[in-house]
Each structure stands twice: as structure tokens, then as C-alpha cells.
């Protein structure tokens, strides 16, 4: 019966299996409880490392907001407008203003008129984020017969 393994060896094998089981349990629980964080997945082709990029839309445009440094401090913000099919693209380019609010704290930053960097791309150099929290980035697109206001919720975690 006990010809293949000594009782001591078997005991250590049991210990190893139990240990492996415990490790597996710990790993499984850890992986289930710490899901991949949802920030900084770039939807934009030119987003810098660590940037947060969010896509939203209006009847006229797909609006892509890229926050270069989604942490407390000053960050550059880029807005890209991709006109929808059928939407009029003629006429002068619209005015794009960017602001941010931390609603729970009642903090707001001033409106920054974005500088048109290239066709359909608008840039704000320094938007101050005072503290971590669930911010709302407000993008207002004005002109060509439209006044669109978009809210991009974004958590600034540190």
C-alpha cells in the first residue's frame, strides 16, 4: 500500500497541495477584488502617456476630450471634434471653451477658450485641478448655429 511514498513525503505533499490551494485562493480573491483601473485607456491616437481620453457626442460632432495629466495640478486639455455625417462642416470653426467643476466640493475653474491647434483640434494649455475627486469637465461648442454643452465626468484619483 505505502510502497510508493513514505508517510513523511506524503505529508509534505499534502502540505504543498494545501499551500498551493491557499495561494490559488489568495490570487483568485486578489484578482477579483482589484479589477483593472479604468483610466488612461486612450481613445485618441495622439494621447500622451497617462492621459485620460473620453469620447462623448452631440448631434453635430463626436467630441473627444483628452486630459493630459489626470492628477491634481495643472493639466493640458485637448478637444477634438469629429463632425458627424451630414452635419454641416462649412463656415467658420466654432469656439470651444473648456472648464471643470468638482460638484461635491462646489469648486469650479474658470472657462478656458481653447486655441484651435489644427483642423477640429482645440487645445487648452493649463487647466488647474485643485484636488482629487469626481470632476466634471465641461466643453461648450459655440458657433455655426449650434450651442452644445457636454459634460465629461472624470475621477481625479490623486
Amino acid at each position, binding site marked *: *500500500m*505505502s510502497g*510508493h*511514498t513514505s*508517510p513523511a513525503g*506524503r505529508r509534505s*505533499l*499534502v502540505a504543498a*497541495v*494545501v499551500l*498551493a*490551494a*491557499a495561494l*490559488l*485562493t489568495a490570487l*483568485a*480573491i486578489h484578482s*477579483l*477584488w482589484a*479589477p*483593472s*483601473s*479604468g*483610466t488612461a*485607456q*486612450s*481613445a*485618441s491616437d495622439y494621447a500622451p502617456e497617462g492621459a*485620460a*481620453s*473620453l*469620447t*462623448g*457626442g*452631440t*448631434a*453635430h460632432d*463626436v467630441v*473627444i*476630450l483628452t486630459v493630459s495629466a489626470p492628477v491634481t495640478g495643472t493639466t493640458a486639455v485637448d478637444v477634438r471634434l469629429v463632425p*458627424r455625417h451630414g452635419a454641416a462642416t462649412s463656415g467658420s470653426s466654432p469656439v470651444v471653451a473648456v472648464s471643470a*467643476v468638482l*460638484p*461635491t*466640493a*462646489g*469648486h*469650479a475653474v474658470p472657462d478656458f477658450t481653447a486655441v484651435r491647434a489644427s483642423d477640429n483640434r482645440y487645445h487648452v494649455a493649463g487647466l488647474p485641478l485643485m484636488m*482629487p*475627486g*469626481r470632476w*466634471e469637465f*465641461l466643453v461648450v461648442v459655440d458657433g455655426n448655429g449650434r450651442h*452644445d*454643452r*457636454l*459634460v465629461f*465626468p472624470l*475621477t481625479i*484619483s490623486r
Partner: protein
Amino acid sequence: MNDTAARTTGHDTPPLTAHSPRRRLGAALAVLLSAMALLFAMSPLAEADSTAGGDVQVAQTLGDWELTVILRRVTGVPGPLHVDVITHTGTSVGRLKLTVVPTGVSTSASAASASGTDVDTAVVTLGSRPGSYPGVLDVTQGGPWELSLSAGKRTATIPFVVSKQTASPAETAVYVGFSGAGVLLLGTVLVGVRARRGWWTLVPAGGMVACLAVAVTGALLSSQLPLPPSQGGQVDATIDGVGDPYAYVGQRTSDYSRPPATLLLSSSTVRAGKVDDLRLTLSDASTGLPVDDVVAHDGALLHLLVIGPSGQLWHLHPVRTSAGEFEVALSLPEAGHYAVSAEFERRGGGVQQLRSATGIDAVSVSGAAARTTSGDAPTRAGTGSQTVAGVRVRLTASSTVAGKAAALTARVGDTATLQPWLGMLGHLIVVGPVSPAAAVGTATQGAPVWAHSHSMGAVSDGDHDTSGTDDTSGMKGMAGMGRMETYSSSASPSSSDMNSMSGLTSVNGDSTADETVAAYGPDISFVYTFPTIGYYRIWIQAERDSTILTIPYLLHVTGTSEKTR
């Protein structure tokens, strides 16, 4: 075969006879089957307590229509959104165009590609008969959406969230753990039967133990782990957040509340006898920005109360036209001052009641059919009977002493045919103290107390026999009633009276019956503690025969134990 099977049980076991492996296989299979049964018994539980939003009920005063729009819960995406538009007596025939627009943002460009565009439209034709008029629209994804209702030149937008059934990490652990344990149990049996060396069974058996540990840990923790913040209710909803609320938890906080708001009226002067659009702007009291996070509360985004010079009460539900902007068509019949207040709730919690600092002055204009109404404002204080819109109403009060809970019970009609309006069987508006002789609009503009109380049914006050229900049926009415606790803390001539409550119940916090159910009353009770002595104007509102009845009273609240009848 005999030798191999014997080893599976380890060295303590005596050798077994030839037919025992089959028996043991049978036993193992029985264990496996019971484990699978346990798994299937556990799995519905694993999904039941995820954030399953109920129906959303939003009252809308659109033009001269008072509509209740019910957005039924979306059970899967892509899938249908059932919208029921409930009309009241006197609703004119017309067409209502419904449109759904996703409004969410996402880190994924493809997930947000449809945001801001019309995804589906439907037309609901409202008939002259009061009732429920259904419409069905297709929603394509989870996340924040907007439903717009258009009639003529007026458009109302209702923000709502299409949530997904998501399992918490703990529930996933339970599910994965039990599934894995089931598979590994089968593996253990197979290895035990087949393997040459008995200790090989320890490998799948160990894995099974690990899986069971994961599952049990998950099951034990699932009830204790905090839920992620409600998307749209506590935090701004995004497509990603709705798709996986646990991944977007962010900082844990118990306080999601936002600053108070200020209420601005577009105009403080309107023309008496003419229909004028009143626009209301809600702005954040900290930043001054538009308040665009109003969530449905008590069956509406915004409840507007207007009190007229002769004691008329309007309880309207202005429609949202854009961020922080609401609009209602008002036709004020007579010249004079009208007091205005609004109730709403911002995302993150906290109901706010704001009173317009100005109110509205209606001025006479030539050609307008301005008239002076009368009879809406009782001049004599007290409870008693009156007839409103052909319905006999009798009000009784246990006592009306300042600082003591007053139980007010109104018998509206004689039959149990009341319909819940805004999710409640009765509404009580209390304004005072006021001078009973003064013009009501002017007096209520400056009144210190504006209160709004609700009734979910009848509660015995000891003086007044509310119903013939016995104790058991009364208790049945109480089952699952979180809201009723307000009664138990304030109305208490005796605790046995609590058993005679009956009324609208909400089991497990799920949606209550809507207005199409005319089976409640005729008694509706309110418990309100008048803070100070003086004369109070009160209005009781209840729905019967698809008509919203507004019943005015004038009550005298005394400072002693003496009763005012």
C-alpha cells in the same frame, strides 16, 4: 483496479472489496450532483442583489397636459424600453413624440459613437379617455440616456440611466468558485478511479478545496461589502461606470451630496387670464453653474407649488428643457400675488425645497378673461366636510397643538377607489402661520412654514375608525414598508393602533402600484407636527377617477391641549 481504487482513500483505509469502486464512484457522483445543485441554488442569489433599478416615474406638466410618464425597467440591452404615458381626466387628445438619445461618455470611442444622436423614436397618441398610453423604444446600450417628449413646439427631456445587471466581485467569486469546485470534483472522481497513484487525487481535490474556499469567502463577504455608488443617483453616470460600477468606484466616501441650489424665475410678472410660460432656472449655490443633476424624486424631477390670491393651489411638474432650465405653462386666473416654491433632489442626495424670493405678480391686461375666484380659501378654521369636484371629503384631526404630532385623516369619497399619485396616496401641503383674512398668495409668500407631507394610507388616531381591517391584514399592509417607520416615530396614541394601518406598500423597495390601480382609501392619513401656533392653510391632494382633487382647509393650531374641533 481494486488496488488503484483503494489507494484513493489514503493509507488509513482498509482494503476494499471488488465491487466497492463502483459504490464509491456512485457516492462521489452524488456529492458532485449535490454540489452542482448547491451551485444552481446559489447562482440566482448571486445576481439578485446587484443594483436592479426599478421603474422611473416622472410627472410632466407639458403644455396643458398633466402626464405621468413611467419608464419601465430595461431588462437587457439592446432591448425595448417600455414607456407608459398616463393621462388624467380632461386631457385633450394629441400626439406625443418620444425620442431616446444616449448621452454618456466612454473611454471607448466606439461605445460612445452614438452619444448625442437620436437612436429611436415612437409616437404615442393620447386619447380623450384617461388612462395609460404605451410606447416602445429600442435602447442599444447601458449608460445615461435622455428621453424627450415633444408635443407641438414644446419638448421635455427626462434623463435616465439604463443599468446593467452586474455581479459584484464577491458574487463573481461565489459563481466561479462553485463552478470550479464542481468541475474539479468531477476531476477528482475521475483521477481517483483512474490514477495509478492515490495521491494524484490530492491535486484536483486541493484545487476543489481552493475553489470552495473562494466561493465561501465570496458568499460570506458579499453581504458585507459596500455597494458601488449608484450611477446617476449618487455619482455622474458614464457608459463605462454603468458597464462595470465596481471598476469605477474611485474614492470611497459616504457623502456624495452637492451644494444647495438657487431658484430663479424668468419673470416675476405675468398677465392674468393669459397662458404664460414660466421658466425656472436652477443654479448651483457654490459655483453659479446650471444644476443639471436633478434626479427624479417623489415621482417628478421638479415639483412646483403655486399659491394664488384666493387660496388656489397648483401642484405642477415643470419640464426640463435644457441644463438647469425648466418650463411650465401657467395660466393665472386673477390679478394679485402668487407665492412659488419648488422641490427637487440633486444627484448625491438631499431633497431641497426652495421658495422663490419674488413670487409672481399677475397683472390685469385688457382683453384677458381675468376673473376673481372665490371659495378656494376657507375663511373659517376647522376640519369638517366639503365637496370638491363632486367628491365628498371629510377631514378629522386628532389634535392640532403646536409641537405635538397631529394625525389628520381625510376620507375622500366613500369607496376604496383612490389612485396613487406621484407614488403616494395623499399629499399634504401646509403653509403658515398666516393671517386668515389676508390675501392667500401674499400671506403665504411670507409664511415661515412650508411643508409637504405624504400619506401611504390610513392610520388610526384613536378617535377615528379608519377601517374594518383586522390586525393580520393590517400587518400585511405594513410588510416591507420602510416608509411607514415615520409614522411609528411620530404617531403614537397607542402602539396597537399601528396594526390598523393599511395602504400602498412597496415590497423590497420595489416599485409601488401606479395610477392605473384604483383600489386604495378612502381614508388617507397624515401625521404632521405643527411647529408653532397660529392659522395654517393646508391642502390635501388625492387622485380619484383620474382626477387630482385639491382640498383646502384652514386650521387653527393652539398652544394648549385644547382642541380646535
